[in-house]
C-alpha cells in the first residue's frame, strides 16, 4: 500500500535539485545578457552591428517558429505572414507616432508588432489549427501565398512593391535614446531578443506549453487527458504569431521599411530552414540556426556569386549527416562532457575536421573555377581563390583542387569512423562504484 511519506521526502529532495536547476537557468540568462551588452565592444568592425541586429531579429523569428514546429509539431509554410503583418502594423504606428498622432516611444514598438501578429494569428489560426500534419502545412502555404500577393495588390496598407517606410528618429525619444545610430538599435534589439527568448522559454514550461508537446506527440491521447488538441494548437499558434510579430516590430525599427517580400514564401522558407539546421528539438537550436544562417546569407555573397549553391549543399549535408541540427550535435556530446572525456575527442575531431576542410577547399575551388570559365569576361581567366590567384586556362589548379577533393574524401572515409569510434568511447557512461 502506498504511503505518501516516501513521495513527499522525494519531493523535498527534488525541490532542492529544482532550485539548483532554476539557479542554473537564471545564470544562463544573466550570462547571455552580459554577452549581449559586451559584444559591440568586442566586435568592432563597422559591419558587425548591422549584422548582429539582423541576427537578433532572426533569432526571435526562428524561436517563434520553433514554437510551432519543434514544440507543437506544426509545419508551417506561412509563418512570415505574422512577422510581416506585425511589422507593417508597427511601421504604420511608428509613422503615426512620428506625426504626433499618438504617443509611443520606439522601444515599445515591438509590442505593437506582437499585438498585430497575435490578432492575425488568432484570425487565421481559428480555421487552420483544426488539423495538424499536411492539412495544416498546406493551409499555411495557401494563406502565405494569399497574403504575400495581397500585399502587392492592397496598395494603401502595404505600399505596393516599394512597401511602407518609416522613420524611427521622428518618434518621441525615451531616456535620451533617439535611435539615430545602429548601436542604439542594437541595444533595443538585444533587450527584446533576450526578453522574447526568456518568455518563449517560459512558455514551453507552462501547462499549455507542455501540452503542446503532448499534442505534438499524440493528439489523440491528449484529448483523453482533458485537452482539446485544437485549442492547444490554437494557443501555441497565437503565441508563435505574437512573437513573430515582435520580430516584425523589431524589423520595422531596424530597417525602417516593410515590403511584401517580408511576408512571402521565401521568408517563410528561410525561417523553416534556419530552424531546421539549428535543430528543432532544442531550445537553443533556432538560435544557432538563425545566427549561422544570417551570417552565411549576408557574408557569403561578398565572396562568391554562387553562395546559394553552397547554402543548398549545406542543407543537404545537414540533413544527411546531422539530421538533428547543430544543436543536436552539440547535445550529443553532453554525456562525454559529463564524463569529462571531451578532451579525448579533440584529436580525432581535429583530424576529421581538417580532412573535411580539405574536401571543401577542393570542391569550392573546382566550382569557382567552373564559374569563371562560364561567366567571366573573355580574357579574364585569373581568379583569386583562397588568398592566391589561379589561372583557369592552366591545368595545374584543376588538378590540384581535384586532388584535394579526392584525397580529402578518401582520408575522411578513414578518419570519420575513427572519430565516430572515439565518440562512442567517450560517451560511454562512467562505471559507478
Amino acid at each position: 500500500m502506498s504511503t505518501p511519506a516516501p513521495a513527499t521526502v522525494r519531493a523535498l529532495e527534488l525541490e532542492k535539485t529544482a532550485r539548483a536547476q532554476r539557479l542554473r537557468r537564471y545564470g544562463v540568462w544573466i550570462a547571455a545578457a552580459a554577452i549581449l551588452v559586451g559584444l559591440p565592444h568586442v566586435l568592432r568592425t563597422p559591419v558587425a552591428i548591422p549584422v548582429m541586429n539582423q541576427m537578433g531579429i532572426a533569432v526571435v523569428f526562428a524561436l517563434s517558429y520553433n514554437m510551432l514546429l519543434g514544440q507543437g509539431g506544426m509545419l508551417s509554410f506561412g509563418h512570415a505572414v505574422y512577422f510581416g503583418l506585425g511589422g507593417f502594423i508597427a511601421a504604420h504606428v511608428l509613422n503615426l507616432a512620428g506625426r504626433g498622432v499618438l504617443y509611443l516611444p520606439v522601444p515599445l514598438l515591438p509590442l505593437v508588432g506582437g499585438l498585430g501578429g497575435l490578432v492575425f494569428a488568432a484570425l487565421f489560426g481559428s480555421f487552420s489549427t483544426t488539423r495538424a500534419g499536411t492539412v495544416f502545412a498546406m493551409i499555411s502555404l495557401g494563406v502565405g501565398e494569399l497574403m504575400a500577393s495581397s500585399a502587392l495588390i492592397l496598395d494603401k496598407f502595404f505600399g505596393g512593391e516599394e512597401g511602407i517606410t518609416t522613420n524611427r528618429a521622428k518618434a518621441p525619444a525615451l531616456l535620451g535614446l533617439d535611435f539615430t545610430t545602429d548601436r542604439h538599435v542594437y541595444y533595443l534589439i538585444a533587450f527584446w531578443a533576450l526578453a522574447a527568448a526568456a518568455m518563449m522559454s517560459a512558455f514551453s514550461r507552462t501547462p499549455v506549453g507542455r501540452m503542446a508537446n503532448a499534442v505534438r506527440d499524440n493528439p489523440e491521447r491528449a484529448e483523453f487527458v482533458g485537452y482539446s488538441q485544437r485549442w492547444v494548437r490554437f494557443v501555441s499558434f497565437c503565441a508563435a504569431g505574437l512573437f513573430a510579430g515582435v520580430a516584425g516590430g523589431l524589423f520595422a525599427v531596424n530597417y525602417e521599411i516593410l515590403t511584401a517580400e517580408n511576408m512571402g514564401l521565401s521568408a517563410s522558407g528561410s525561417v523553416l530552414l534556419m530552424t531546421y539546421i539549428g535543430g528543432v528539438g532544442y531550445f537553443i537550436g533556432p538560435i544557432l540556426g538563425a545566427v549561422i544562417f544570417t551570417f552565411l546569407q549576408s557574408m557569403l555573397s561578398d565572396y562568391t556569386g554562387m553562395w546559394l549553391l553552397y547554402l543548398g549543399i549545406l542543407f543537404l549535408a545537414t540533413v544527411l549527416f546531422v539530421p538533428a541540427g547543430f544543436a543536436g550535435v552539440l547535445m550529443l556530446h553532453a554525456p562525454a562532457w559529463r564524463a569529462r572525456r571531451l578532451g579525448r575527442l579533440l584529436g580525432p575531431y581535429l583530424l576529421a575536421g581538417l580532412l573535411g576542410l580539405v574536401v571543401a577547399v577542393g570542391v569550392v575551388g573546382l566550382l569557382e573555377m567552373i564559374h569563371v570559365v562560364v561567366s567571366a569576361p573573355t580574357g579574364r581567366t585569373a581568379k583569386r581563390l583562397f588568398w592566391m590567384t589561379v589561372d583557369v586556362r592552366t591545368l595545374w589548379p584543376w588538378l590540384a583542387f581535384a586532388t584535394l577533393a579526392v584525397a580529402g574524401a578518401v582520408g575522411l572515409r578513414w578518419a570519420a569512423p575513427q572519430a565516430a569510434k572515439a565518440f562512442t568511447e567517450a560517451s560511454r557512461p562512467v562505471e559507478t562504484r
Partner: protein
Amino acid sequence: MLELVLFSLLNGLVFATLLFMLSSGLTLIFGMMGVLNFAHAGFYMLGAYFAYTLTGYLGFWPALVVAPLLVGLLGAAVERYGLRRVHRFGHLAELIFTFGVAVVIEEVVQLAWGRTAKSYEVPALLDFPLFRLFRTSFPAYKAFMLLVSVGIFVFLFAILTRTRAGLIIQASLTHPGMVAMLGHDVPRVFMLVFGTGSALAGLAGVIAGPVLGTFPGMAQVLGTIVFVVVVIGGLGSLTGAFAASLLIAIVQTFAVALDVSLSSALATVGLRMSAGGMLQDLWKVTIAQVAPIMPYLLLVLILVVRPTGLFGTRET
C-alpha cells in the same frame, strides 16, 4: 464572345494537361512516400534545359525521349542515394532534403547554362497555326501538348491498373504499412516511383520549355502551384490530380476574363462603396487581377471544408 470562351477553354485545357503531367508524379510520390517533394519543379526545369541542349545535337524528337529519361535516372539516383538515407529521420528531414536538392538544381543549371534565358524553340515541324477561327489562331504545338498528356494519362492508368507494379503502388497508396509485409521490396518501388515522377516532370519541362520559357526562374514561376493541385485533388489520387488540374486551369483562365470588382458588383445591386481607408483597394481589385492567386484561395477553402481534398481518402 464565343471566340473568347472557346479559346479560353482550349488554353485552359492545354495548361491543365501541363499541370497534370507535373502533378501526377508528385501525387504518387506524396501519396506513397509522404514526401513533400520541393525538387519536383527542379526536375521540370532540368527537363527543359536537357532538351534545349539535346535538341542542338539530336534534334527535338530524340530529345523528347532522351531528356525525360535522363531526368528520371537522376531522380532515381536522388532517391537511392539521398532520400532513402534521409527517410529514417522523418518527413521533415526529407522535405528539407528535397528543398536542398531544388536549390542545388537551380544553381547548377545557372552554373552550366548561364543566367540568361535560353532560346529553346518550338520544333519547325510543329511551328504553324493548326487552325484559325475569327481572329485567333491555335498553334499546332499546343495540340501536340494536349496529345502527349492525354497519352501520359492513358499510359499511367494502364500501368496502375494492369501491371503488377501498378497494383503494388495502388496498395501502398491506401495501406502504406502493408506492402512491406507482403514481401515486396518497398525501397525499390519507391525508387521507381520517384524516378518515374521525376521523368514525368522532366517531360513536362521538355514540352513546356518552348512555350513558357526556359530560364533560371522557370521552376520558381511554377512555384507551389503543383502542390496546390495535388492537395486539392487529394493526396495520392491520380483522378484527383487530373480533376484539380482541370479545375485550376479553367478557373485561372476564365478569371482573367472577368473584369469585375467587389465595388462594381455591389454597384449593380445598388450599393455604393465609398472608397477610403487603408483597405480601399480591396473594393477595387478585379477578379482578373487576382486570377493567378485564385488557386491558393481554392486551396484554403477546400482544405477547411474537406481536409482530404476532392478525391482523397487520407489526410496525411
